[in-house]
């Protein structure tokens, strides 16, 4: 496998979805290609950083409009029932 091949398989590799034979081929390439190792490490870090990004609170005005709308909807539902 060459560098182009590694790049095409990066997603499946970091997701652990590569079939064994292809994974072994890719890892053999990584043994002697520092650049591909770096791309894989950085792509993995990229995903982890977004995954681990903290959830922020809803802006107060957005939250209060949402809850008011939900309450209205539930009240309508009760009237129709």
């Amino acid at each position, binding site marked *: 496998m060459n*560098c*182009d091949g590694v*790049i*095409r398989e*990066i*997603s*499946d590799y*970091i*997701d*652990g979805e590569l079939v064994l034979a292809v994974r072994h081929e890719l890892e053999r390439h990584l043994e002697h290609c520092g*650049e591909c190792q*770096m*791309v894989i490490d*950085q*792509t*993995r*870090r*990229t*995903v*982890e*950083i*977004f*995954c*681990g*990004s*903290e*959830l*922020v*609170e*809803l802006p107060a005005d*957005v*939250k209060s*409009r*949402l*809850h008011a*709308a*939900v*309450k209205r*909807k*539930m009240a309508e*539902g*009760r009237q129709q*029932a």
Partner: protein
Amino acid sequence: MYCATFENGIVQSGLLAGLGSLLSASNPHRLPSGVAKEDEHLLVAAAKSGDAAAFEELVERYERKIFRLTMNITRNKEDAEDAMQDAFMKSYSHLKDFDGDSRFYTWLVRIAANEALMRLRKRRPNQFSIDEPIQGEEDLMPVELEDWGPSPEQRFAQTEMREILSGVIDDLEPDYRTVFALRDVEELSTEETAKALGISVPAVKSRLLRARLKLRQKLNRYFRQGETN
């Protein structure tokens, strides 16, 4: 690779201590959002049988995640709010049709993604189509390769980091960031993402690969070693 591996250490370990200990100190009657997948089906069952408080708990639990998703897709606060509200309204109206084959959260994400995409298409009718085939592979090769050093994100304050992530997502093409948001941020599987967007599994994989590589490239600007912030 799923975010769950990340969250497990932070969130799921608390489950072992028992649900009782998870009650938030500021609101002892409410479980922190995102904690308990395990009791989601109980809340859904209660909401289905007309328990308003149970549905409100589901809203409280997922509102931040749903708003993050609709923001990530639309990149417009007004559209994101409308899409989020309509997603919760529709999930309430159609709760009886929810059969429990998937998690309620996954079902809700699907509704929210559709609401957000509808608004995105309205705003950019000629610029966005999620199901257009991707041409060629020539742009896949990374053009900038520089060492990031260990934990590059720790060089930034939390608010600064939040702005960086928001900025790089903003720069991403809508069809790439939609797939990335569903798959890597909201933790849907490839199949669930494909179903939510009405595209094939290979199309999801192709967009996800491009999204990840492009985001890596954009983050390189901030993370390369020696870069002063």
